[in-house]
């Protein structure tokens, strides 16, 4: 049998290479050489990102277990960039003496979750998908519980692993039923025979909640705020952007590729989930004082918005979704970046700690404001465009009421985003957070995010590029 075709899985291999190099480097390099570890790691990963950012012809490997379509390059690149930003933001944290010894693990685990997502994205078979899923989530648990001596981290880790495993076991049970009812695990074959018999519907539901869990849709979201709060901030951002981004993409592809026959069944499900997620998350968010929890709920409601793109099930929706993920990545990572900088310096995460931030840290609060406005969907920032496109995609399929509900929720979301802005700009504080001079990598990452927020929307090239292949799929 010819294995050369495996070499086509370029992204996965290059990432694997990076991981192995880093592992070896971390283990065998001298103390002196290790000083450059992060630099090397970052540059390697950047290289990997650049190498794999060009879409290729679609192909299938291993008898269709691994299926590539050009669109995946975009989503993977987005994930790469996101990861890169996260790593940049984590740079300072990993340089601290306490964590220096663990940074090898940090990189390794992060990248392995990324690898898992790669497989998840490109999978053409439920086995592959399952492996990807688990590869993405098990190391994640260790990351969540990364700093060992932090009680909260431990708790978060426990909550994450337990919920994750619970979810995935239900999901696996679902998959088993799918297998039982169709006799195959290959997406293409299933698509033809999956006609929506009661058993199959049951199976579908059981299976899909596993993904809903990863996207953290209400009511499968309850782990999210706790885990986000407990884990180290950079990992939270990774969790909120990267794994979520991958999951929504996969959900879309699965629904369209594998379950097209029962669209009339999953559309109502998504409808309900979208309404629930957006509303409940918003209502929870307005009360939050801890900004990490706050962003957790906001990210849940954002996930709800993403469903509007998925529910349309059209190419337009696909493009809007990928675009939304891109914008969401920039905005959310910017917010988390500021958050992590301040937390690392002052270990302050409460909203009222941010009172009068603008007086002392104008730049940081400016970036924060951009990020929040973008999340709230205010022009001229990218968030406005991504939201508009998603609504447009949904409206095209006639989901006006859903769009309207979502829009009403934007009012609530605007309210709580404004609360933070109010804290930073309006409120006064006798001992505000002292002026912070953030290190180069964070600066780079924030500038990068800002540029993204400002121009991804106004310049239509990005969307057009994405759209090209979305129509191809």
């Amino acid at each position, binding site marked *: 049998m010819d294995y050369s075709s495996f070499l086509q899985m370029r992204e996965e291999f290059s990432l694997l290479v990076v991981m192995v190099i880093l592992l070896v480097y971390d283990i065998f390099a001298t103390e002196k050489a290790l000083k450059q570890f992060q630099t090397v790691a970052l540059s390697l990963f950047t290289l990997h990102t650049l190498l794999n950012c060009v879409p290729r012809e679609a192909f299938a490997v291993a008898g269709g277990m691994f299926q590539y379509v050009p669109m995946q390059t975009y989503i993977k690149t987005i994930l790469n960039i996101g990861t890169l930003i996260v790593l940049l933001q984590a740079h300072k944290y990993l340089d601290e003496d306490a964590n220096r010894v663990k940074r090898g693990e940090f990189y390794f685990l992060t990248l392995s979750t990324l690898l898992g997502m790669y497989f998840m994205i490109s999978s053409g078979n439920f086995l592959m998908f399952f492996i990807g899923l688990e590869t993405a989530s098990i190391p994640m648990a260790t990351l969540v519980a990364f700093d060992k001596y932090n009680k909260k981290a431990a708790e978060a880790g426990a909550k994450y692993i337990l919920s994750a495993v619970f979810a995935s076991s239900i999901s696996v049970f679902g998959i088993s039923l799918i297998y039982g009812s169709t006799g195959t695990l290959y997406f293409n074959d299933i698509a033809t025979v999956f006609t929506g018999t009661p058993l199959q519907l*049951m199976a579908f539901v059981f299976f899909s*909640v596993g993904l809903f869990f990863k996207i953290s849709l209400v009511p499968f979201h309850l782990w999210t705020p706790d885990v986000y709060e407990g884990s180290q901030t950079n990992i939270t951002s990774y969790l909120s952007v990267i794994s979520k981004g991958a999951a929504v993409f996969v959900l879309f592809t699965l629904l369209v590729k594998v379950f097209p026959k029962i669209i009339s069944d999953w559309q109502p499900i998504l409808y309900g989930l979208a309404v629930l997620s957006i509303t409940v998350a918003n209502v929870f968010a*307005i009360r939050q004082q801890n900004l990490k929890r706050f962003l957790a709920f906001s990210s849940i409601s954002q996930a709800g918005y993403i469903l509007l793109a998925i529910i349309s099930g059209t190419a337009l929706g696909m493009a809007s979704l990928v675009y939304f993920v891109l914008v969401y990545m920039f905005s959310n990572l910017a917010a988390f970046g500021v958050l992590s900088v301040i937390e690392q310096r002052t270990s302050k995460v409460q909203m009222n700690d941010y009172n009068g931030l603008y007086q002392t840290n104008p730049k940081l609060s400016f970036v924060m404001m951009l990020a929040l406005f973008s999340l709230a969907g205010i022009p001229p920032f990218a968030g406005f465009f991504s939201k508009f496109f998603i609504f447009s995609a949904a409206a095209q399929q006639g989901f006006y009421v859903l769009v309207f509900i979502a829009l009403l929720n934007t009012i609530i979301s605007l309210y709580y985003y404004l609360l933070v802005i109010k804290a930073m700009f309006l409120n006064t504080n006798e001992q505000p957070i002292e002026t912070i001079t953030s290190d180069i990598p964070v600066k780079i990452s924030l500038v990068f995010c800002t540029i993204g927020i400002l121009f991804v929307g106004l310049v239509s090239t990005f969307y057009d590029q994405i759209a090209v292949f979305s129509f191809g799929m």
Partner: protein
Amino acid sequence: MQYTLLIVLLPLISFIFLGLMDSKLKPKVAGIIGTSVLGIITALSYTAAFEYFTMHKIAGVYERLIPLHIEWVRFTEFLHIDLGILLDPISIMMLVVITTVSFMVNLYSTSYMHGEKGFQRYFAFLSLFTFSMLGLVIATNIFQMYIFWELVGVSSYLLIGFYYTKPSAVAAAKKAFIVTRFADLGFLVGILFLSFYTKTFDFGILTSGNPNVFASTVGVSFMGLSVMSWAMGLIFIGGAGKSAMFPLQIWLPDAMEGPTPVSALIHAATMVVAGVYLVARLFPVYEVYAPDVLHGIAYIGAFTSLFAAVIACVQTDIKRVLAFSTISQIGFMMVGLGVSGYGAHEGLGYMASMFHLFTHAMFKALLFLGAGSVIHAVHSNEMKDMGGLRKYMPITNYTFLIACLAIAGIYPFSGFFSKDEILAATFEFSPYLGGVMSIIAGLTAFYMFRLYYSIFWGKGHKHAHDHTPHESPLAMSIPLIFLAVVTIFAGFIPFGHFVTSDLANYDIHLDMTVAVMSVSIAIFSIGIATLMYRKESKIPNIMGKTFSHLHKSASNRFYIDEVYIFITKKIIFKNISTPIAWFDKHIIDATMDGFAGVTQWTSVKIKGFQSGQVQQYAYIFLLGTLIIAALVLFV
């Protein structure tokens, strides 16, 4: 006759100039500018009058001249506001009246207002008023008239409130403006009705007598009443507001808070007759298409006249007496119009009322200026502070007397002729109304002489004014004398040759019976007044006692003001605005805040779901899964 434009423009220019320069100018200079401008336009309007009445006559009928006419703003294909100058007998007459009186008043003011703060502002406002008033009378179309109507209202507001630190003055100004404004609402809606159906604002077309103009109004009715009645009635409300017809007369007495010359100009001679002028302008329309309204006007006029005359008998503030007499006299004019018909002899009332407007302007201005000079001398408006002034101020005395005789309608003073015509016309219309009007004439004579005597006769109350009062300076006396002269001889103007309802000549012939009767009534009432007020006498008090109710309510102006206070304060402020404001705050606004509140509340209520217990999370997770499954399977 293009130069008539100057008559309007010059005051405007002087207003703008004075207004902008304001305190940068020396008071004297400002006064001179203002007065001289008025002098110029007076001369201009005299020449205009002369030229018009001599030359522009075709087959004995005066033609309507429109020397200037521009479209100002266009509403629909038919309706557009034009600004222009319309010259016909009444507008020419008004030009003469306004410029003359205004000029006199300006001249008078230069010394009357001497040393007042805001002297320049005063003259600026006077020019503004003159401008607006002139613009009003030369209006070629009803909307232009409305425009200047408003401007007149504002300038009157500014002038009444001239002493803006005096609360009563401010209040009076506000009252005057709002009451007239309310009336103008009627005017506006009237215009809207009229213009909608006739498709024009233009007086020329409206009064052309061409029935096609009103074709579309035939048989159209709005809420039961014929559209034309609506239109003309509402328009009359506008006039009633400005001309202080019952029940909108309340603002005029208070308006006396303004400087006396202002009262002379605005609230005696010119602005208050705008209503009369308006009706006269649209007379043909009233006469043909809304006779019911026209008769209504007659009765309202009569009632107002009586009402005001009665009140005038008991007022003690001399300016207020004059104010009420003004209302009463305007009532006469309205009656004159109301009873008039269209055409040569039927148009007698029309002609008479215009005539009375003319003469009244002169002698009433004279009266006010005289009163002004008295007040100037004794620094008080109250009768009780006066008396025996004839020794000190002869000129004022004689001029005032002349004016009194004129208004009382004694031959050969101008008032006699005009009033006589009105009475004659009224008698032709209905003897009863005629009788009433004669009685009012008597009352007029009575209260005027009551006024006269209590100012100039009797023994003076020195304590009221420590220094001995003295005759006013020349700048004040000249106008008095001039107006007195006019008052004496104006009666002999063959008015019918100039102003008639159909623009044709008409020879006035005295109706002897009416004349004799009215004169005798006048003399009789003057006699009574002489008895009662020439010397100190008990009679007034006895009278007051006997008719105590009447006396009391009359001196309280029949409590009309209280009614207004009630309406404004109680009804509008307390029972409409306040509730609305409350509603806005506690219902509408509260609802909006309510949404926010509810969201917050829910947020607190449902926080239990996030219990922190993994098992409960899993439980909800499972529940969600099963519910979805159930829905998918069974729904």
